[in-house]
């Protein structure tokens, strides 16, 4: 199937993602900015009334709508829904993409939550944001202007957008985790460093990031990315080992 409109839209999306990757170096809230780009591209491509992304957060467990776009999207931002309810909850819990149409005729369809956004949709498509083996959130689209339902092709396209969003979230979180890990290591090893010195060292390391280059920092990022795939128990073991290594290193340094 050759669709120049689609190819152009995908190219635009990839360009936006790449541009955001650069902007991420400068923008403190990079994850948010990139996710915003993705929902805006989704609304434009699907000619939809609204698109939004909800991310899973703990304590209490909830799916929090972080970004939204489209004429009817704004009301969703900041809303939280429990993962045990509704279409978004189902897609998050099962990782299974889903589209419903004719939802307005169903009086019990999450109406309370929909009304809080100021907009009750006629149709909804939702796909999971999957980061490796973990679902981290849900991308949803409400009401295509050109059709009362979503086609299989729509669902597949939406999955492309979702995979971009998941990659963005992963990149942002890995970078955040890497900075935290570097800080933790420096705090442990740098007995004679002030918090300000540690801050400036971490900041300098993060500023010098160049994805094309094999710097020690990127190696560290890779290690952290690998650590994220371990189970809780395995992570605890790694932390224990790191502590032992760190204490030996500190002892060695003092001896010199």
């Amino acid at each position: 199937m050759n669709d120049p409109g689609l190819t152009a839209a995908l190219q635009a999306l990839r360009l936006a993602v790449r541009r955001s990757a650069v902007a991420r170096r400068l923008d403190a809230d990079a994850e948010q900015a990139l996710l915003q780009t993705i929902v805006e591209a989704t609304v434009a491509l699907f000619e939809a009334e609204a698109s939004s992304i909800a991310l899973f957060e703990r304590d209490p467990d909830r799916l929090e709508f972080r970004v939204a776009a489209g004429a009817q999207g704004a009301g969703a931002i900041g809303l939280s829904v429990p993962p045990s309810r509704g279409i978004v909850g189902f897609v998050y819990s099962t990782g299974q993409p889903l589209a419903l149409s004719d939802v307005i005729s169903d009086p019990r369809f999450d109406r309370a939550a929909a009304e809080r956004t100021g907009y009750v949709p006629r149709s909804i498509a939702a796909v999971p944001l999957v980061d490796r083996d973990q679902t981290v959130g849900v991308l949803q689209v409400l009401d295509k202007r050109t059709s009362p339902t979503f086609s299989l092709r729509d669902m597949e396209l939406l999955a492309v957008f979702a995979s971009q969003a998941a990659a963005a979230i992963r990149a942002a979180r890995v970078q955040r985790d890497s900075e935290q890990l570097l800080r933790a290591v420096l705090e442990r090893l740098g007995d004679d460093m002030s918090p300000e010195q540690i801050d400036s060292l971490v900041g300098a390391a993060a500023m010098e990031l160049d994805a094309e280059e094999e710097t020690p920092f990127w190696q560290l990022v890779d290690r952290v990315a690998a650590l994220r795939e371990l189970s809780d128990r395995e992570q605890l073991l790694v932390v224990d080992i790191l502590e032992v290594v760190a204490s030996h290193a500190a002892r060695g340094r003092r001896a010199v």
Partner: protein
Amino acid sequence: MPDLGLPAWSEPFAEDARSQLVRAAGLRQLDREWAWGGSTGAGVKVAIIDSGVEGSHPVVGGRLVESVTVQITDDEAEVIPDEPIDMYGHATACAGIVVGLAPDVEIYSVRVLGADLKGKGAAFLTGLEWAVEQGVHAMNLSLSSKSERLFPYFHEVVDQAYFKNVALVSAVNNVPGLSFPSTFSSVFSVAAHAIPDPEIFFYNPSPPVEFGAWGVDVPIGWKDGSTTVATGNSFAAPHVCGLVARILGKHPGLTPFELKAVLAAIANDPGELPGSG
């Protein structure tokens, strides 16, 4: 469709791709009359591993015989009795599609989704194991796991099911990366086509996805007695599950291997669809 680097599992069943779905001519000696003529799925036990079937929903036709859920405490997972309610509507939708095709089946609801089930993968695995032990004949699995850690355990239970002659019908997930059990070879893996007919299904000789059934704009039963219209591979799988129940109603004891061969033999010929000349 440009190459999006994603598994577009429904592509083989799209109108312009269906001519590739060719099969061995000898299989055509079986027909649907032989396979399920006169069968209503009576005597066939079907487990719906999902969000809990709403027993009183009209689409379920009073066929729900038992409801259980999985309780997870610390490291222990235990199967306990459950109310016949649906947390989302999804299990009821699947059960309704199965009953629609095989009105006399017995439905066993195994709820592995919901507010109190945080270890979702573990609950799914435990529910699946329970249903195999109960001796159900077929199962609908419109959900999947991506947990690398649970992969070998799922593999073991799916093998147990195969050796006990339980047909596991599973929706494939259009999400990149590891996703099972639909990708295990003994499972009946199903993606969606868009022809609005519950009895039209295709066999795909190029795995991993073996069957294509109706999954676009399907009228379904949903939560609290309601109905709606839905799209997803989730709703294609129960169509195949319902047809499997019909076949088993007429030919009890067929193995999953034999069932797949029967389905391949009686699948719609893409060139002979009603209205396609």
